[in-house]
């Protein structure tokens, strides 16, 4: 990986899965399994927590989530991407224990969720978790205002305090003036804005979004993605975001986990996935992704030639797409600098061009 050589200088230290160190882990799961069928637990423990396709089929079981390990860090958008039936929805439900995992460990702020009592779990869900659903899951008999205030109502917060909070959130998602509407009077995009506002009502530590934009039209979807990024810019939540749309994953993610048949195939930054796909399956997704949108200057740069004249400086994490416009007018290469302003490499018009015209081009 080309970033490895400059690891020390990067603003985020990354290991092979692109995992940032030094920032708190909000939620982590270790070897989580969810197997559907009779006697799943017995079969799994007899196999010492390792079952392959063959064994599952013989036992007549369905492995929805298989041996999944990852952690999501504070303020990070962690996207779980997979096609339908890959187990991503089951996985996110295991994280909140909406579905009881068959085996493994889910650590939320260091606490083992699977060992938590029902009462503790209810408290955690009430105060620390928010979830947005694919089909919005709004309550049809409540107005927008009451829907958004509902999580607070469940906690027993009195009306005088929950209504101002709900109004605040409705404003945050840009639905002011619609407070007294009922869900069926709103468009899909608006309904999901309500869903988002509602999930934020309790100021969650972790925010689960289960394919939140999949039920929306492409144009609205794009608008909502921008809106989502804007919100995250303000809120800095830890986010686990589920999608089946690789473009969406690339657009939103700090890191992506690609799932297939219940297991995670690769975890990495969008850039890492594009540069170094773990196998053909991942490569297939990345093939049509415009490289310029994903690759950073650091990934494309060449070692700095001593005594070279530079037209200017750019930070290493700048996307090629962003610097393309600037470099067109430069005869000389640009210097790529780290956070401290030290030059770590140089990037020329040629290398940018090569990225933009050739889909197959990997880092030089």
């Amino acid at each position, binding site marked *: 990986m080309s970033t490895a050589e400059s690891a020390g200088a990067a603003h985020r230290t990354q290991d092979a899965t692109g995992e940032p160190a030094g920032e708190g882990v909000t939620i982590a799961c270790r070897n989580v399994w969810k197997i559907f069928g009779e006697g799943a637990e017995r079969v799994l423990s007899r196999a010492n927590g390792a079952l392959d396709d063959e064994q599952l089929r013989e036992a007549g079981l369905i492995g929805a989530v298989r041996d999944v390990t990852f952690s999501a860090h504070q303020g990070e958008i962690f996207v779980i991407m997979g096609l339908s039936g890959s187990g991503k929805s089951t996985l996110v439900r295991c994280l909140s224990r909406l579905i009881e995992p068959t085996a493994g460990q889910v650590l939320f702020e260091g606490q083992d969720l699977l060992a938590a009592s029902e009462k503790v779990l209810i408290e955690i*869900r*009430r105060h620390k978790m928010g979830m947005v*659903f694919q*089909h919005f899951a709004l309550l049809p008999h409540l107005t927008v205002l009451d829907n958004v205030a509902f999580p607070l*109502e469940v906690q027993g917060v009195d009306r005088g305090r929950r209504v101002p909070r709900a109004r605040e959130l409705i404003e945050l998602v840009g639905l002011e003036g619609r407070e*007294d509407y009922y869900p069926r009077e709103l468009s899909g995009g608006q309904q999901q804005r309500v869903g988002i506002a509602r999930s934020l009502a309790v100021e969650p530590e972790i925010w689960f979004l289960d394919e939140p934009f999949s039920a929306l039209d492409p144009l609205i979807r794009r608008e909502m993605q921008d809106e989502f990024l804007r919100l995250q810019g303000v809120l800095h939540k830890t986010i686990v975001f589920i999608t089946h749309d690789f473009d969406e994953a690339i657009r939103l993610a700090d890191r992506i986990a690609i799932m297939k048949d219940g297991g995670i195939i690769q975890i990495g930054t969008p850039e890492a996935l594009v540069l170094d796909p773990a196998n053909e399956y991942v490569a297939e997704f990345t093939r049509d992704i415009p490289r310029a949108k994903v690759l950073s200057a650091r990934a494309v740069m060449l070692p700095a030639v001593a005594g070279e004249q530079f037209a200017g400086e750019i930070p290493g994490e700048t996307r090629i797409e962003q610097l393309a416009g600037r470099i067109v007018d430069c005869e000389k290469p640009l210097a790529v600098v780290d956070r401290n302003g030290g030059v770590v490499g140089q990037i020329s018009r040629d290398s940018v061009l090569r990225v933009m015209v050739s889909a197959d081009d990997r880092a030089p």
Partner: protein
Amino acid sequence: MTASSTISNLRLRLLRPATLNRLMAVGAIVAVMVVASRVPWLVAYPENWEIPLRYWVSDFMKWLINDFDLGLFTFRQFTRSIAWLLNWPLVSAQGLLATGFELEIGDSAIDLPRLSWLGVIAAVTVLAHAAGGWRLSVLVATCFGYLAVFGQWSSGMITLSSILIAVPLGAVGGLLFGILGYRSARMERGLLPVLDLMQTVPVFAYLVPVLFLFGFGPVAAMIATIIYATPPMARVTMLALKLVSTEVVEFGRMVGCSRWQMMWKILIPSAKPTLMVGVNQVIMLSLNMVIIASMIGAGGLGFDVLSALKRLRIGDGIEAGLAITLLAIALDRVSQGFTHRAQPAHKEQPKRFVARNPHLVMALAAIVLATLGALFIRGLEAFPESPRISTNEFWSGLVTWINVNFFDQLDAFKNFLLLNFLIPVKRFMLSLPWSVVVGLVALTGYRLGGWRLALAVGCYVAFMAVTGNWEKSMSSVYLCGVSVIIACLIGIPIGVVAARRERAHRVVQVCIDTLQTLPSFVYLIPVVILFRVGDFSAMIAVVAYALTPAIRYTDHGIRQVPAPLIEAATAAGCSQRQMLWKVQLPIAVPEIMLGINQTIMMALSMLVITALVGTRELGQEVYIALTKADTGRGIVAGLCVAFIAMTSDRLISAWSARRKRQLGLA
């Protein structure tokens, strides 16, 4: 094609495994029948093998009433105190609507008048407007106006008051049972067969025990009504709660709802539209019970119909029957109106109660004003005598006229069908050995649903023989079967036409909606006028009553054929006829079968009522048990009816489910 190739073709076809299987099955049946006919106990179930279940049930009932002691009080005291408790709301409602109150203060008694008829009509009209706009309010005003003008007001209000008390009790009871069933799978497994039985055992069968436990009178009648009307609500509740989307339930769990919050803040409100369908069912079934309930003292319109029928005063019967029908239509449409009413829109909610509930306030005001007015103006309390209309003369005249002019034709028609169709079928059914019938039904069950189903339906049928009700059961099967066949012959073509023509669909829809709100008893009235008593009259009444589902399901089944399929068939150049026979009907068959299933259920429930016009089958047995207050006899015969119903239901459902799977529709 040459003759030889035809023959070899035929031989090939005969040798195909499916055909071979069928041939072998037929052969086996014939063989069994031949063998069985030589072994007497296989033909007719020997009397001394019968299990005296009816006596056991009667003895148990006696013990329950006389000797069962719960410690502090006896069981009978317990049930009677329930009756006493339920009497309060019922008496209050009746006093308010029908009889007025008599208050004793010291030595003097003060009569408080009932609510004014004009006030009640105004109030229901206003409420109907809230439910469904001015059209509905005109309809409801007409229906209630009929009660006043035709002198049915007092009886109508007695009936209405028992409905008003029975419906909330039945709905809440059904809701609670439904919630229990939803919460635990074990509870549901236990509840479903009980609901099945409650819905298929004819009401007459449990009138006797209700009579013993709760005494004769309006309260016992109301309890019987509640028992009858509750099961569908429980069923609808379970279904409605299950239909709430998983995401909504997950949302509830994610925000940390307690069980209570989950049920009452998430599930029930989300399921409300479906639950309202259940409430509507409770209302309609309660109204259906009105006449039957009057047999154990309900009074009101039901009593009027019953006594008119007994004395063959056709005019009175028709007027009171029409009153029940109109009441049913009005309540049905209003409750449906509230169900389908556009959910609230976002308009600024005014804060004051009066401004928020204009309809309710107006309705209450109308009642109060008119009732107060009645203290000064005589005609407001009861509808004045002079403008009342009676059609008694007209109906008697009509009946006489029909009998004078058409007696021969009607009689000839009746005799023709009896001699050429009904009686031969009956003879055939009665000649079948019981062992063969049990075997055949079990075999069918095995083919459709494996051992479990075979065992279940086999036992159901065997029960009829073992308890000594074989012949009556077969008579019921015959009468019911003949009626169902005729109902299908009439209903399915109508359904087909309705499905293919929009205008026909609308007309048919209105007709069957109306027919379905008619209480089953009402069907007897015209039939008795035209054909007197006997199997034939019973059959006509059953056909008329059971016709609606055959039409409705056929219409629906054909309409739900996926549109792309129709387009594909049109593109392939199907003619109208080909479209119907090659595309629509084959796909709609599972749905139509469900309709036939419903037709059978309704036919069976009507069959018991036709006992009043002198049939000789299980219905009569149940009815006799009622008049003799013989608990065991009634219950056992009632169970036989239930088992006939459940046998056909299980078999047809299994077939329909299998077929839907094959067609990829399920």
